[in-house]
């Protein structure tokens, strides 16, 4: 195995790791958005229940 292949395998794993977490974060974000109770639970503003305020 060449050093270039070792580097490629590392790069692919790194890209896949990012893929899994980015898509997971999007799914989680959407799941929170569609549920007002979850929004309130993660909101900084407990009164309005709006995200990220």
């Amino acid at each position: 195995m060449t050093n270039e292949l070792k580097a490629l395998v590392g790069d692919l794993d790194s890209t896949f790791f990012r893929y899994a977490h980015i898509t997971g974060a999007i799914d989680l974000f959407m799941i929170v958005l569609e549920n007002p109770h979850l929004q309130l639970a993660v909101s900084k503003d407990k009164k309005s229940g709006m995200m990220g305020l």
Partner: protein
Amino acid sequence: MTSFKTGKYWEILNMEAPGLSSLTIDRRKQQIHRSMLVDGEKVTWYPKLPVKKVLDEWGNLLGFIYGIIISRMIGDLDFYLCSVLQNHFGHGEVSGSSWEPFITRTRIELLRRKHGEFIYMLFQERHKIEHNKARVDERFVQRMFKEAILHTYKIGDPIQKNHLDVLATYQAIREFARDVDGKLSKLIGIQNGV
């Protein structure tokens, strides 16, 4: 819609914020707008959007990520081909694709290696994702025809990817690269008199 009133998530949330289920929330207020203070002035850097509009974009957002990730993985493979050319053949490729130069210099027929045709098509798709708004054009069809690669695209078709495509691409690139690298290692060994 996913129900989270059962299961582990809901249990955790109720532990963190007991009594959530009894709260009422004005849905009309639901919108996303992120902001920050710059020199004491509030600057909104994320457009105000109704939640429904964002939720409607769920699939499109994920599709966008699928395309980016597949492009990135093909980019990783192209970097591998480019690095081999640079480090073992003294050739610095600047054209943006090392596929053809790699074949020319190493005489390894990449199309005939494991998953070679699939990988070649991904290279071409990547090019369209990045330079033609993910639309198939005549040049794409001609290239596929020239290499006798079967596909179902017509000119103007969008290149759409899903989660399974990402998994298949990840696996195919790994197996393709291992196969090519085995051939390459023998070639380099012969060149070095091993």
